[in-house]
C-alpha cells in the first residue's frame, strides 16, 4: 500500500475500532438479555441500536468532575493511556492479505507490549484517585495483569515456533494447510483465559468487582473519563478477539468469501463467545484467580511450549 493509502486505512481503522467498541456495548447487553431470558435495551431505534447514541449523549453531557483530593495530572492522564495503547495494538493486526497498517517483524511482541502498557491506565487511576477502593482495585489489577501477562506471552511461543516468525502476516500464511487451533490447542486455551484476564472482562473483572470494591479503580471517575475506560475495555475485547482469530483461526483465510469478510465473521464469533463466558461463568475469588494463574496456567503453557518444541524439532529432523 502507498503511504497515503496506509494513512487513510489507519484512520478508517481507528473509526471502525471505536465504532465497533460502541456497538459491542449494545450488542453485549442484547445478547446477555437473550441468554438471561430478558430483553435488554430494545426501545431506541431498530432493535435498540440507538441506545449507544443515547448512552454517548448521556456521558458527554455529564459533569466532567476531577476530585479535589486526587492527583489531578495523573487522574486525567490515566484513562487516555488504555485507549491509546489498545488502538496502537490494532496497527499490527492483518485484516487481509493487503489490509494492514504495518507489517512489523516483531508484530506479536508489539501487540504484547501494547497490552502490557494498558496496565498503567488501571494502576495510575487507582493511584491518582486517592481512594481506598480505587487503590485496592488498582493493586489487584496490577497483580492480575502482571501474572497473566507472563503466560500470555508463553502460550503464544508455540505459534511462533510453528510459523517461525513474529510477523502476524507470516503467521497467517503459515496456517494455509491447518489452523493453529488444532496443533496449538493448549496454547489457544491458555491464551483465551489470559486474554479475558488481560482485558479484565467479567469472569476475571476483580479489579472492579462491584460487590466488594464499589467500582474498583474507576470509583472516582465519571462522564467522559469513565467512558474512556469503558472504550478501552471494549477495544481490548475486540483486539484480543482479532488476535485469537489471527493466531489460531487462520486470520483472513477461508474459501469463497472475500478475506476481510472472513476475518470479520471469525472475530464476531469469538466476541460472541466472550460474551457467553460473561453470561455463564461466575466471578472467582481473588486468591482462586491467582492460584489458577500460577499453579495451572503457567505449567500448562510451559508444557505446551516444551511439547511443541520437541515435535517441531522432530519434524525438522525428518524433513
Amino acid at each position, binding site marked *: 500500500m502507498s503511504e497515503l493509502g496506509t494513512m487513510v486505512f489507519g484512520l478508517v481503522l481507528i473509526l471502525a475500532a471505536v465504532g465497533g467498541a460502541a456497538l459491542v456495548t449494545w450488542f453485549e447487553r442484547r445478547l446477555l438479555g437473550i441468554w438471561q431470558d430478558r430483553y435488554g435495551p430494545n426501545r431506541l431505534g431498530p432493535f435498540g441500536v440507538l441506545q449507544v447514541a443515547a448512552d454517548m449523549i448521556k456521558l458527554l453531557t455529564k459533569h466532567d468532575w476531577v476530585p479535589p483530593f486526587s492527583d489531578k495530572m495523573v487522574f486525567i492522564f490515566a484513562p487516555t493511556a488504555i485507549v491509546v495503547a489498545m488502538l496502537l495494538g490494532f496497527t499490527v493486526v492483518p485484516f487481509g492479505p493487503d489490509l494492514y497498517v504495518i507489517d512489523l517483524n516483531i508484530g506479536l511482541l508489539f501487540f504484547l507490549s501494547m497490552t502490557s502498557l494498558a*496496565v498503567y491506565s488501571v494502576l495510575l487511576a487507582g493511584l491518582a484517585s486517592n481512594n481506598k477502593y480505587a487503590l485496592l482495585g488498582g493493586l489487584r489489577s496490577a497483580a492480575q495483569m502482571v501474572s497473566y501477562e507472563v503466560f500470555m*506471552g508463553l502460550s503464544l511461543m508455540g505459534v511462533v515456533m510453528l510459523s517461525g516468525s513474529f510477523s502476524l502476516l507470516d503467521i497467517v500464511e503459515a496456517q494455509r494447510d491447518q489452523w493453529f487451533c488444532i496443533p496449538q490447542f493448549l496454547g489457544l486455551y491458555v491464551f483465551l483465559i489470559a486474554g479475558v484476564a488481560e482485558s479484565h472482562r467479567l469472569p476475571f473483572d476483580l479489579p472492579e468487582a462491584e460487590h466488594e470494591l464499589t467500582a474498583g479503580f474507576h470509583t472516582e471517575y465519571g462522564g467522559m473519563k469513565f467512558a474512556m475506560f469503558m472504550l478501552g475495555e471494549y477495544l481490548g475485547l475486540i483486539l484480543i478477539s482479532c488476535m485469537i482469530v489471527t493466531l489460531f483461526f487462520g486470520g483472513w483465510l477461508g474459501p469463497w468469501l472475500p478475506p476481510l469478510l472472513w476475518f470479520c465473521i471469525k472475530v464476531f464469533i469469538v466476541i460472541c463467545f466472550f460474551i457467553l463466558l460473561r453470561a455463564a461463568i461466575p466471578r472467582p475469588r481473588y486468591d482462586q484467580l491467582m492460584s489458577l494463574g500460577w499453579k495451572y496456567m503457567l505449567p500448562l503453557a510451559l508444557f505446551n511450549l516444551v511439547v511443541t518444541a520437541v515435535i517441531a524439532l522432530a519434524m525438522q529432523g525428518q524433513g
Partner: protein
Amino acid sequence: MIEVLFYSASVIALLATILALTRSNAAHALIYLIVSLLAIAVLFFLMGAPFAAALEILIYAGAIMVLFVFVIMMLNLGEVGEAQERGWLSVKSWILPGIMAALLFIELLIALSISSEQTIALTSGVAVPPKEVAMSLFGPYVLAVEIASMLLLAGLVGAYHLGRRFIVRREGVHEGGDS
C-alpha cells in the same frame, strides 16, 4: 523525516529523565521514567533494532516499572514521603553527581564528533530482525545466555525461599490465634 523523529525522541528521553530525577512525588517520577523508557524504545527502533525496542517496552516499561508502581501503591507514602524526598534533593547532594554526569556528557559529545563516520556506519539503516538476534544469542553467545539463566534461576529460588518462610510464620501465628 527519520532524523526529526530521532531527535524529537532523544529530546523527550532527556527531558523525561531529568524530570524523573527531580520530581519529589515518587509516582510522578516513575511516570516520567516510563516515558523516558518509551522514548528510548523509539530510538532503538529507529536505529534498526526492533527486537530491542519491543523488549524495552515489554520488559522494562511493561513489567518492571509496573512492579515499581505496585510497590509505591503498597507503601502509599503521600505527603510525608514527598517532604522527605524534597529534603534529599538539596543542591549539596546533587552537585557532585551533576558534575560527573556533565563530564561524561562532554566526553560523549567529543567521542561523537570524532568518530562520526563510524557511528553512522553502525546505525545506518540496517535493521536487525528478531531471527538474527536469536541466532547470535544461541550461537556464539550461548554460554552467556546459559549463565544468565542460571543466575536468574538462583535468584528465583532465593526469592521463593524468603517468601515461603514468611508465609509459614504467619500461618503459625494464625493457627495459634484460632486455638
